[in-house]
């Protein structure tokens, strides 16, 4: 694997499959162990550099690094003396001096991980940058899809029909998923009101539609994105009720899905807005699994960047 994981587009098909395979091997080797820990990254230092609150992503990376026996430093820039603009470079120089082997960065500004990577020698993992990308989320989603559709080690997601619904414009999850799923052979359709699709989406390696009802029957996977209520105030859509009626996944709509189709959500959810509670908690939902898979996939990424082969 390359030095950094900044974009889902950094991964070739072989590399992406290797991450999923490694995650599966790690899961298998931890199965039944009392101490869920591997000695692989003993003596290595992983820094979680979070400029934006995201407890679940931070904990997921922290667990992943600790289960590989790495030393973990959590550097929460939010609310500290670090304020916008004055210190990404200073922070980078500090991490450099501390000899961080890997820096996991979450940042509200698109592109910040690229800048960090130009200032430090260690590996940089993008844990979400602005409205741009979140590659490990895409990997854990792909991992979840591969498992739930009964595909095995070494396989991609060829022919899998994935529908991603909601605020694509502001979604780093959607951007990374489109790139990774295309690499793995899946067919992606983005569904959103036209105001929430990016300019130039027709050049992306996927289809797009404004009509959720038309997109559901053919889908193997439906991924619902979080919709922020602020978008309504900025006139991306008229009211919550209208959004929910046109683009929410309620029980009636979910019933039009193929029997084996699964429903995903990167969390945190607005129940009742983009997804109904009975769907979120129903048998199709992979939402809880996604969280568990996130740790395995992030272990695989850290392992491959810092320690392992492939």
């Amino acid at each position, binding site marked *: 694997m390359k030095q950094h994981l900044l974009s889902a587009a950094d991964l070739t098909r072989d590399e992406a499959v290797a991450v999923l395979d490694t995650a599966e091997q790690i899961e298998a080797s931890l199965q039944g162990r009392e101490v869920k820990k591997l000695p692989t990254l003993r003596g290595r230092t992983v820094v979680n550099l979070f400029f934006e609150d995201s407890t679940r992503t931070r904990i997921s990376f922290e667990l992943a690094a600790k289960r590989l026996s790495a030393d973990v430093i959590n550097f929460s820039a939010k609310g500290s003396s670090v304020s*916008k*603009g*004055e210190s*990404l*470079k200073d922070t980078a120089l500090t991490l450099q001096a501390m000899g961080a082997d890997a820096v996991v960065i979450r*940042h*509200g*500004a*698109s*592109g*910040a991980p*690229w*800048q960090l990577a130009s200032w430090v020698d260690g590996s940089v993992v993008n844990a979400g*940058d*602005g*409205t*741009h*990308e979140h590659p490990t989320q895409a990997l854990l989603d792909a991992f979840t899809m591969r498992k739930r559709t009964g595909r095995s080690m070494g396989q991609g997601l060829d022919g899998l029909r994935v529908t991603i619904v909601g605020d694509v414009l502001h979604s*780093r999850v959607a*951007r990374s998923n489109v790139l990774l799923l295309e690499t793995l052979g899946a067919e992606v359709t983005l569904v959103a009101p036209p105001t929430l699709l*990016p*300019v*130039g*989406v027709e*050049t*992306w390696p996927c289809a797009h539609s404004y009509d959720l009802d038309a997109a559901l029957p053919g889908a193997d996977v439906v991924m619902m994105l979080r919709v922020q209520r602020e978008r309504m105030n*900025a006139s991306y859509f008229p009211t919550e009720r209208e959004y929910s009626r046109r683009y929410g996944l309620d029980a009636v709509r979910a019933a039009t899905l193929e029997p084996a189709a699964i429903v995903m959500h990167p969390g945190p959810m607005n129940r009742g807005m983009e997804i109904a509670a009975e769907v979120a908690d129903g048998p199709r939902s992979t939402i809880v699994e996604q969280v568990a898979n996130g740790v395995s996939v992030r272990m695989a990424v850290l392992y491959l960047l810092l320690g392992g082969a492939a």
Partner: protein
Amino acid sequence: MSTKLIQQVRPLRGDPVDVLIEDGVITRIADTIVLQDVEVIDARGLIGLPGLVDLHTHLREPGREDAETIETGSRAAALGGYTAVHAMANTDPVADTAGVVEQVYNTGRQIGLVDVIPVGAVTVGLKGERLAELGAMADSAARVRMFSDDGMCVGDPGLMRRALEYVKAFDGVIAQHAEDSRLTVGAQMNESELSGRLGLTGWPAVAEESIIARDCLLAEHVGSRLHICHLSTAGSVEIVRWAKSRGVDVTAEVTPHHLLLTEELVATYDPLYKVNPPLRRGTDVDALRGALRDGTIDIVATDHAPHAVEDKECEWAYARPGMLGLQQALSIAILTLSDESGAVDWQRVAEVTSIRPARIARLDDHGIGFVEGAPANLTLVDPAQSTVVDPHALASKSHNTPYEGLEMPGRVMATLLRGEFTVRDGQAVK
């Protein structure tokens, strides 16, 4: 009493000539002038241009002297071949009163490297709410003729109309930063397929074009002079062409960077390339270059925007927009106005960098060139030399140039302000 004899300089048209300068004024031009006891400048091989005039410079003083001062900016201007620069009003305090514009003007005079002509703010504090005292600024020692809220757009159409009308009393011009701010909320780069991929909020071309169209119609309606700052899109060119064909008294400028650089550079996330209006597509650059050649765009203006290191070496979203330009503008004008064989249309270079800007700003002592009786505000360029841009070798206090390592054609060997060297042998005199 100082007398200088410039020997064998090539004016814009015709063969090399000798030029005699006495007390800051060109007194004689002839094939050969023979005189004893005068300072002689050998200008063989050099092109003589009227001293360059910039209508769009950010000098940061008062307020951000850590990024640039009138002195450092003046030196950069002189080295770039300028004899006059217009200092934009978005300083701190804003140049919206006679007091501030006179302060800027007088500081420039004392330094004496270039005429610093303040641009007055159109509205108080650049807030877009009430007209500033435009007449008081016009009547001040600074004789302000150009007014702009640059950095901000005069968005209210009623206020824009009044501003256009009001400055007719003293033959002023409103220079508009065309940006409908309701269409650029949170904007970070050109709105395009690339902005969608990079996850950066887009600044759509229509935000510029709709204001230009509106203001051209307003200028036509009230019969006033309008100047459009830093045109950046092919659509803007079309609108200006259309307005001129209707007889609207509109002029337009383009920056060096919009003539050379495209949005693809943003994919580096290097804030050196962050500028407002943003770098656009290759097709826009082509349209802007064509429009500068055919006269639809009247002039090149630098939008020289120095920024301190901490305002640029940070996250793209937090970085301030703007880049340096005073020391490269002439080279980029030369590049743009050369044909495939490399032959330069020097007349056109002079028009877009000096003659037209001086006329738009109503300066009667600049943009004249080699004319007997005219003030000796001149620039001598060696077309055979070029310069590789080194950010730290620039005279500006800041280093935010996007041109590092690029080879820039044509070297300014001398700049004269009222007959005195401000640049000699390619070096600033003071």
